[in-house]
């Protein structure tokens, strides 16, 4: 299987406090990866480095054969990747349908987004403003906007945090569907039992290092 992302010797620190120490990882096409670890272990930091959103101290990150640089290769990175990170939001006064239209233009999505809407059961919310949605509905909408980017790799940071069982199952079903379509998916969670049923490979961040689990 083709390696699409390769992280080598990555070290990241916040104010001299090392969060990731000499971490290496490679991601292959069409696989679902889980990254687990305690709160504050550096899971989100790792993903944000891979996406070029934050700077890192040492190491290299390559994506589709190109070494990426912080703040320089954003357009390159997001032509291959899309992500749902924690705490991001959409303009609160925009309706769900307007958000979807906007991100289908921004993501240069050619198809019809109705299938995504139906799969994530957002149809009844189309005329609701973002601020009127519940947390779970917001998560689903953010996932929908990420999918409108037509990326090859999808990063999901704690996608099931704070959402009910029903929404969680819908998101998981959707991830399984994406896996069938040969999309590479990286899911972050602090609970292994939440994501292990979905993942081909699970890595754990513990004490600033990565350990691999089957």
């Amino acid at each position: 299987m083709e390696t699409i992302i390769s992280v080598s010797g990555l070290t990241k620190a916040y104010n001299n406090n090392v969060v990731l120490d000499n971490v290496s990882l490679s991601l292959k096409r069409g696989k679902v990866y889980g990254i687990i670890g305690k709160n504050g272990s550096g899971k989100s930091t790792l993903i944000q480095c891979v996406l070029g959103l934050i700077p890192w101290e040492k190491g290299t990150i390559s994506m589709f054969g190109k070494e990426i640089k912080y703040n320089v290769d954003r357009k390159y990175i997001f032509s291959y990747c899309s992500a749902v990170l924690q705490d991001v939001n959409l303009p609160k006064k925009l309706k769900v349908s307007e958000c979807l239209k906007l991100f289908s233009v921004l993501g240069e999505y050619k198809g019809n987004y109705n299938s995504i809407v139906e799969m994530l059961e957002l149809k009844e919310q189309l005329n609701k403003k973002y601020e009127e949605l519940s947390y779970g509905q917001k998560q689903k909408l953010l996932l929908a906007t990420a999918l409108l980017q037509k990326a090859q790799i999808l990063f999901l940071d704690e996608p099931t945090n704070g959402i009910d069982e029903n929404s969680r199952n819908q998101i998981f079903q959707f991830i399984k569907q994406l896996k069938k379509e040969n999309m590479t998916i990286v899911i972050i969670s602090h609970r292994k039992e939440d994501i292990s049923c979905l993942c081909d490979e699970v890595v754990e961040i513990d004490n600033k290092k990565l350990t691999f689990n089957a």
Partner: protein
Amino acid sequence: MKKIIALTRNEFLVFLREPMAGVFIILFPIIILVSSGIMNNGSDAILNILPVSIGLTILAAALLGITMNLAIYRENKVLKRFQMTKLSSRTILFAEFNVLYLFSIIGIICEIIIAIFLFRTKLRLNIEFFVLDIIICSIYFWSMGFFISAIIPTVKSVHAISSLLFTIMMIFNITPLGNDTVSVVVKMVSNILPLTHAKFLFDADLMSTLYNYRLYSYVYILFSVILFIIIGNKFFRWE
């Protein structure tokens, strides 16, 4: 182009649904214009205040519109969502500019209508220069808004600094009107403020008078725009 149109459309909808900023951009300068006209009894006072109120309209759109919107988007992590697309920061700013420019044009048209029909002010509008100066001043104030929102991190501090700058420029431009005893120091401070250059330009445009320092104002504005955009671009933060 599609992305700019889509973003502009959405920003426009957001503005319509949260109209306070738009109302402020349009209404506040009109209140100053009308109250000044009434208090000073007539069209001469309007001729003095109209260039300032037009400048204030554009300034409010930039300082209290663009800067605040960007700061709120940053604090609410909306910019971070946009960061995870191929959008450039300039595209977002351009969409903001389009919407706020539209609001300021509506405000300016209202002010001219009020001056002509309510206060019977006779304007000798130099339309070419007037349109050109509206565009130049809009870009000038927009770049200043971009600069402030790029270098100042939080909504509270952006609000405080924008309001402070807006108030200072307003006071320095309104207080000396019709007052010949203003000190040299006040005039010197006033001359370096962005709103003052807008006032001088619009003053000449509205009455088709000669403004000897037009070129100087343009150079000053151009230099400031370049500086604001370079620094703003360098320090722009998505979160």
